[in-house]
């Protein structure tokens, strides 16, 4: 199997693996952030450019470095390849520029946005962004759209990662929403605001890295850091029934799919589980979900086993 060195860490991965996935096998700080790539969605990636890395050595046979920074979610590894991510200033500067571009039209409405606290763009701009904007022109704004009874679309917040489009395409038999327009005019649209009424449509909320697609049944109900995420399951005829219930006391405020350490959902859940079963009696709660200590959701939460607390 080909060997690849990322920021000095060597890893052996199968042929055809992308640099991003090889870095994820090593884990830790050297994993490039990704806003559009989603491992469970075919064809995703290559759009947001946040995962740019520098290839300092092309391969064992051809050791020349690649002339430009490459998108690590799309570039496949070669034997003996050497990649610099956090060790390269060029990459860090480029990423800073990418974040600035992503934030050009993104509104600063985190205090209002339901995604705040679990937003990937928030994390990314906290790490790489600038405190002030240099953009002087008017930002593009859109009216909020209700996509059906469950989903709200804030097009103003969208960063055009296409994840929801791929979700709709790959999870549901007929796609009813896509991207309309080009460049600055591109927007996610359902054509004449046609409601998505597929049983798995709610997953576009989970794949959205920003707050463009949000849960209408949870809209302004609480903030994510006041809720306790608990692993729970139920017998569901349409999906796996494995979900995370976000509880406040004994009340379930919202239900989401289980996200892994990279914020990606492996088991998509159906709309019945997500929007309609919010009674505590519907779910078998397995226990508190492990929260990253650095996350704001971990604030004022005790997730350690209570019996070990003295």
């Amino acid at each position, binding site marked *: 199997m080909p060997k690849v060195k990322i920021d000095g860490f060597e890893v052996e991965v199968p042929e055809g693996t992308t640099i991003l996935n090889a870095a994820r096998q090593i884990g830790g700080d050297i994993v490039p952030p990704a806003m559009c790539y989603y491992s469970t969605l075919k064809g995703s990636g290559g759009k947001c450019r946040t995962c740019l890395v520098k290839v300092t050595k092309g391969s064992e046979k051809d050791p020349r470095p690649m002339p430009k920074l490459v998108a690590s979610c799309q570039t496949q590894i070669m034997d003996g390849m050497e990649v610099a991510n956090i060790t390269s200033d060029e990459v860090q500067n480029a990423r800073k520029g990418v974040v600035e571009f992503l934030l050009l039209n993104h509104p*600063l*409405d*985190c*205090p*209002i946005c339901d995604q*705040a606290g679990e937003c990937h763009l928030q994390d990314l701009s906290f790490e790489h962004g600038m405190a002030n904007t240099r953009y002087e022109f008017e930002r593009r704004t859109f009216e909020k759209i209700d996509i059906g009874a469950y989903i709200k679309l804030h097009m103003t917040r969208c960063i055009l990662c296409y994840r929801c489009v791929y979700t709709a395409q790959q999870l549901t038999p007929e796609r009813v929403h896509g991207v309309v327009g080009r460049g600055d005019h591109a927007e996610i649209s359902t054509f004449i605001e046609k409601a998505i009424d597929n049983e798995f449509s709610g997953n576009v909320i989970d794949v959205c890295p920003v707050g463009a697609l949000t849960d209408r049944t949870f*809209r*302004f*109900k*609480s*903030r994510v*850091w*006041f809720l306790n995420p608990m692993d729970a399951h139920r017998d569901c005829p349409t999906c796996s029934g494995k979900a995370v219930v976000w509880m406040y006391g004994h009340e379930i405020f919202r239900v989401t799919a289980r996200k892994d350490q990279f914020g990606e959902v492996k088991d998509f859940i159906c709309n019945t589980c997500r929007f309609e079963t919010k009674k505590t009696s519907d779910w078998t709660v397995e226990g508190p979900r492990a929260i990253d200590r650095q996350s*704001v959701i971990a*604030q*004022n939460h005790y997730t350690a086993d209570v019996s070990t607390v003295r």
Partner: protein
Amino acid sequence: MNFWERIYLPAILKGMWITLKHFFRKKNTVNYPDVKRPFAPVWRGWHVLKRDDQGRERCTACGLCAVACPAEAITMTAAEREKGEEKLYREEKYAAVYEINMLRCIFCGLCEEACPKEAIFLTDRIVPSDYVRQSFVFGKDLLVEGTEPEKRIDVSKRQKHIQEKIWAAGGVTQ
């Protein structure tokens, strides 16, 4: 004990003399509430929820004050602004219920530091005492300042420079 100590008189006179001396000393106390001591510039008391220059509530119920609060004194419920309420609330979300438990509050000022909208400030007003615990849960009626200019509540000297920065930017913080 000798004779002089046994009759106690010198000791009593000595004590009276000390008492008499205190009559002419400078007093350490003030006659509150007629006389009030000046506040230290860092004094933090009763919170205020500010309105902007157009009289709209600045608070958007983002919950950052509540998560920053080490005493967990702040609770809130958010609501969505309806059409026609644009003059009441600045943002599309607002706090329908905003409560601070003044018995829990330790007046540390972390909430005003956390506030992204410059909505909450700790002023130099003293929280009045009461006999009933429930009355210390201050709702929006006791926290939000009035719309009329005379009902506006000044923030303390400590925070003046923050406020002046907001006014210089035309009342917009973003």
